[in-house]
């Protein structure tokens, strides 16, 4: 009998009862699965949207396309209902709504994603720094952050865009900065929780440097809640960018983005046009889908997550 076997035998003779059930795998509910489907769909569209779309986003459809036998010689091309020519109808200038939504996926999701990444890069770096750093650093960063937080986001957006104009890099930078403030708070409080745990203390007694403590002890333990928060934050940013576009301050024509599409086509509502509804639907499917996934993940982590994220 090898030593290992002897030890094993000894352990079974302890009859020590198991302490905790083994780690559970995430199981997605039907809602979660639907969420995954839609998110996956839109991610694919970000990459292939422009190649599968029937027209270019800026193309104003030719009226000849809409001529039906026995109909008018020069039909209106704007606010056309869905037809074989334009599956989701046309907008106020007679552009194909479907094509604009597919092109817009790239702009809307792309800008929001980059802005979320930027918000995370800034927020997590500074938040963790505040959590592990000295009291003074924490005080300075937190008060500075509070000051930023006190400005309403849309106001802030209006002022910045009024001052420097609306280009895509500015849009990303500004949104990232605005949302970094809330990420900072989440990261800081998560970091502080882990910072006082015994295993971090054990690392400190061992004499580990700050870099090891941050990368090996703290980050692995905050990454899950942060990832869930990433999803939610992404949703907020999509809505933020869309509302800026709705105000006419976001993505500039002729580029399409979902928020500005809703705004441009509002005039069609009285005529029963579906052109403002379709981009809204796109925004809704994506944001609700992300929420469904996040719900499942936080249910898996025992609801603790959602409490900490408020």
């Amino acid at each position, binding site marked *: 009998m090898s*030593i*290992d076997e002897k*030890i*094993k035998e*000894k*352990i079974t003779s*302890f*009859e*020590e*009862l*198991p*302490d*905790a*059930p*083994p*780690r*559970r*795998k995430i*199981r997605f509910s039907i809602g979660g699965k639907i969420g995954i489907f839609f998110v996956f769909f839109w991610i694919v569209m970000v990459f292939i949207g422009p190649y599968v779309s029937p027209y270019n986003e800026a193309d104003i459809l030719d009226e000849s396309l809409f001529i039906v036998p026995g109909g008018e010689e020069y039909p209106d091309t704007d606010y056309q209902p869905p037809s074989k020519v334009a599956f989701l109808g046309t907008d106020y200038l007679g552009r194909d709504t479907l094509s604009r939504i597919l092109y817009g996926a790239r702009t809307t999701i792309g800008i929001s994603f980059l802005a979320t990444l930027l918000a995370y890069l800034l927020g997590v770096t500074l938040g963790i720094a505040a959590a592990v750093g000295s009291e003074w650093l924490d005080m300075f960063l937190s008060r500075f952050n509070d000051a930023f937080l006190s400005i309403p986001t849309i106001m802030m957006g209006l002022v910045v865009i009024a001052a420097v104009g609306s280009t895509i890099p500015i849009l990303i930078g500004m949104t990232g900065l605005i949302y970094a403030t809330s990420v900072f708070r989440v990261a800081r409080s998560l970091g502080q929780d882990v910072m006082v*745990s*015994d*295993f971090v*203390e*054990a690392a*400190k*007694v*061992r*004499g*580990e440097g700050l870099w090891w403590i941050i990368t*090996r*002890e703290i980050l*692995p*333990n905050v990454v899950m809640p942060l990832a869930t928060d990433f999803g939610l934050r992404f949703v907020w940013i999509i809505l933020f960018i869309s509302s800026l576009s709705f105000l006419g301050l976001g993505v500039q024509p002729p580029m399409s983005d979902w928020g500005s599409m809703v705004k441009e086509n509002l005039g069609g509502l009285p005529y029963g046009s579906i052109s403002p509804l379709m981009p809204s639907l796109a925004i809704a499917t994506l944001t609700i889908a992300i929420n469904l996934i996040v719900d499942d993940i936080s249910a898996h982590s025992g609801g603790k997550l959602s409490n900490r994220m408020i």
Partner: protein
Amino acid sequence: MAPLLEVDNLKIDARKDDGSLTPIVKGVSFNVKPGEVLALIGESGSGKTTIALSALGYTKPGLEFTSGEVRLHGQDVISMPSEEKRLMRGQKVAYLAQSAAATFNPAMTIGEQVTESAIIHGQLLKEDAENRAKELYRALELPEPERLGKRYPHQVSGGQLQRLMAAMALCGNPDLLVLDEPTTALDVTTQIEVLKAFKSVIKQEGSAAIYVTHDLSVVAQIADEIVVLYAGEVQEHGSAEQVVSTPNHDYTRRLMNAVRPPPAAGHGDKIEKSNNEVPVLELKNIFAGYGKIRDGTANISVLENINIKISKGQTVGVIGESGCGKSTMARVMSGLLPASKGNVLLRGENLKPDLKNRSRSELQKIQFVFQMADTALNPRQRIDQILGRPLEFYLELRGGEKRKRIAELLEMVELPQDFAGRYPDELSGGQKQRINLARALAASPEILLCDEVISALDTIVGANIIELLKQLRKNTGVSFVFISHDLSTVASFADHIVVLYAGKVVDQGTVDEVLSPPYHPYTRLLISSVPELRVGWLEESVDEIEELSLKRDQGFIN
């Protein structure tokens, strides 16, 4: 007499993720007669709390009743509609949770909370309920019964809160009390007060009780009947007298053996040592505390003028009640909390107070073993990463050498090799504590600071860890600082004892010196407060303990 509560072939299962059922309670039956105290005893995971909660018709989320009945006054409480269950709880059955501190609402006065359930159920009018509460405060020997109700939970001590919770449970005059480990979180000296109060109040009110605990000596003091549980099954059931004096079942005997003998001279392990040698670690006139430090004294001073020497291979046991500064002392030694005044010497050389300024080899020689293995191991690191890091960090071992050493360490703490690939979540409490020890040993230290390493563990598991520690001491020659609030444990393991009270060393010397007459009065209080494993001990010793506590409170030390 007809039994008050009948538990009849009770089975409770846990539903797993994939929908399959795992039995937690496997057909348990027992009766509780009116006015009788029945103890459920077993290790964690034995299902004792689950069974006790079934008396309220309640299971924790994820568990379900599969068969059997729990009848209170002949009526099955499991199948009862929830509205009836609500009426029954608080009126007929009351529950006392383990930690009173976590159970009280800090924003309500004590009086409001004690009388709340009786008033809500409409049993008593507000005024009557308040009078009843005052009566109970008196019966539980709480201070200032007239004014106590106006205070808030943070204004009373832990032991008092535990007794107030009993008052809360008893206020509605229930027929049955369910007490879940009500004294486990308390100091020995406080535990005695609480036990005594419980016992007399149960007798006075004539209510029956189910007492859940893992501590056999406590049970011997309070229970009439004992049910010994293991893995959801009854192993032994009998009167307290019979189970304690002539246990029939193997498992009960195991439990009895794991109970450490009452502290007395001659139990400690002695190791030969010469006194001329330079001590491995020495504390010289140490003052320490929290808050701002001014002129060498901290705002909140915890330790005052501590002098301790630890020689090579020696085990120093540090004992005291919670709040006496035991853990603070270990933190000063390790440098986690810089002392405000005084010196820490390693092999006769001054150490910097703050660990940030200590060199790596100095850090290596003093290793800290944290109390809670659950929180001391990073849940996101595998065992081989946890054990490998100190090897890399201090000894610069890499690759094959490191793996070999990890295997040796696992063998040293008697765990199989394949544990290296596991995560801490996949281990039991005792196994985690072993890994915790192995991590400290990985640094090849000269001195190990063990802070309450077995207090969170079950009796049998704790006894195994103590055995392991003894073996490690023999094989490695490391010195130990062993901090505990449990005098029996310290007496059986240490060869030198330091008694701390309110941040000062009140008594120190070899185990034989400290634990044989003439005792220091505080040491005597600690010794006599350790419950002995026999029926009737509480009644015999309660007077002496009270007299000693009174002396302590009057300040015999200063």
